[in-house]
């Protein structure tokens, strides 16, 4: 491969360019009017304006992006995460244009993008799923009947949903009645499809996912797990690998289930199998993400591999750089913090200009940032500013190093969630490591004032 178009923005566009540069591959950025001054536009060898700020008029313009790839003579398009990354039509059109899509096959995206269909596929492959409905629910009456059968609390979910949007926990019939129509409406507005289904809500659950990789020769390996249970609004803010508080035996079973899941759909390229893990370390398939994840750096830190390089190799029709599972080793412990432009307690987005951005001493710390000092976080996109990744010999050392580092970071001009991390890192609930997906909201109940100070 000689040239790659990056159909994304911010930190992930820069992250992909870094690997391209190292491999001697030319880079083409595409951008919106709001992103003209962003570092990823300047860093690319070539850059093309797509249109106005709104994603529909810029980053979601699949045909315009493919056209740029053709015009520039690019060999491949990397979609990053979000935006067009899990759009099967985009993948299909790229292939039809004789260009490589850096991701799985379009059919795999379709199969796993539909949550109901992926449940059914996984059950057939022997991967455990949470009890729920295997078909869309047409009416509220039907939903109530099914919910009674499954037992409350239940999760009402949009089949086409993702990114924490289009799902609501319902504790009883009243809550289900209240949310049924609004989840359908939101699903239609966000994903263009209003099919909803029900799943049993697992209480005291952890969200643990497994990084998998497949190639065109039938090789599938896993690159261990990531615990992503520290969440706000059903979206991750801290991820770590390996997962604390998960016995070796359970880990092995989890890894195997993820590999089985990937093999069941002849998975090619990078993917993530998300599981819900209960108090007894029983786990259930949640969904499969058919792209590079935001939190992939923690896996890179503990395995030492460059996942973007692996993606490019596989998309180029080559074998996985490492095919034998036994050769993939995990070393130490890595934690990632997502620094968002948002209020640390209410999580309200806080767009604005980053007047000051001082990371302090960055020795031994990985920072994947989309912005530099003076940059503007606009209201059009996800409020992620940067990801901070710390890798140390042990979890305790990684936490200590994270605390020391984050407490020295200075970001001014807008609100960020740094004050939240600085307090939360010292909490017993995090340091012990047996936390569930409810950890952050519960902890915040009591700590609100200390964070806001």
């Amino acid at each position: 491969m000689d040239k790659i178009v990056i159909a994304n923005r911010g930190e992930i566009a820069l992250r992909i360019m870094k690997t391209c540069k190292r491999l001697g591959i030319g880079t083409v950025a595409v951008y919106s009017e709001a992103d003209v001054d962003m570092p990823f536009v300047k860093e690319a060898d070539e850059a093309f304006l797509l249109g106005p700020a709104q994603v529909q008029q810029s980053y979601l313009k699949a045909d315009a992006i493919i056209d740029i790839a053709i015009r520039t003579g690019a060999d491949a398009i990397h979609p990053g995460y979000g935006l067009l990354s899990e759009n099967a039509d985009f993948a299909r059109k790229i292939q039809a244009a004789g260009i490589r899509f850096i991701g799985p096959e379009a059919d795999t995206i379709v199969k796993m993008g539909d949550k109901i269909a992926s449940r059914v596929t996984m059950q057939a492959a022997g991967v455990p799923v949470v009890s729920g409905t295997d078909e869309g629910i047409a009416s509220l009456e039907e939903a109530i009947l099914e919910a009674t059968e499954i037992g409350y609390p239940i999760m009402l979910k949009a089949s086409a949903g993702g990114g924490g949007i289009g799902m609501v926990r319902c504790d009883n019939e009243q809550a289900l009645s209240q949310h049924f129509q609004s989840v359908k409406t939101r699903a239609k507005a966000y994903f263009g499809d209003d099919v909803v289904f029900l799943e049993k809500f697992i209480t005291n659950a952890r969200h643990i996912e497994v990084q998998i990789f497949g190639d065109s020769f039938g090789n599938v390996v896993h690159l261990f797990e990531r615990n992503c249970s520290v969440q706000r609004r059903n979206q991750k803010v801290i991820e770590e690998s390996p997962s604390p508080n998960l016995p070796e035996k359970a880990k092995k079973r989890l890894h195997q289930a993820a590999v089985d899941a990937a093999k069941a759909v002849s998975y090619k390229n990078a993917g993530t199998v998300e599981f819900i893990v209960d108090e007894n370390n029983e786990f259930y398939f949640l969904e499969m993400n058919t792209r590079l994840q935001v939190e992939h750096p923690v896996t890179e830190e503990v395995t030492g591999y460059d996942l973007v390089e692996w993606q490019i190799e596989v998309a180029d029709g080559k074998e996985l750089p490492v095919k034998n599972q036994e050769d993939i080793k995990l070393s130490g412990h890595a934690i990632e913090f997502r620094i968002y432009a948002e209020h640390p307690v209410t999580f309200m987005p806080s767009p604005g200009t980053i007047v000051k951005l001082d990371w302090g001493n960055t020795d031994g710390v990985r920072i994947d940032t989309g912005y530099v000092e003076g940059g503007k976080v606009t209201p059009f996109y996800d409020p992620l500013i940067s990801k901070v990744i710390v890798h140390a010999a042990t979890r305790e050392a990684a936490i200590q190093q994270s605390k020391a580092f984050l407490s020295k970071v200075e970001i001014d001009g807008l609100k960020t969630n740094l004050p939240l991390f600085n307090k939360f890192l010292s909490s017993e609930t995090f340091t012990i490591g047996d936390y569930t997906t409810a950890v952050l909201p519960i902890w915040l109940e009591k700590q609100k004032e200390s964070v806001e100070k």
Partner: protein
Amino acid sequence: MTPVKSTMAGTVFTVNVTEGEEVVVGQVVIVLESMKMEIPIEAETAGKVSAINVAVGDFVNEEDDLVIIEA
């Protein structure tokens, strides 16, 4: 006449009131979508909705007058 102002820039996700409707303090009149989040905009005064200046899908800036309420 009291305008209900946008608390931040974003796209109008839903308009929850109609012209002539009586609203109470704290009632959600508009929901904006910004940075992948839904932001409810509440009426700070009670009264009758005399004008709605935006439609679903419109992009609005912080401090824009979204809805006008007459006490």
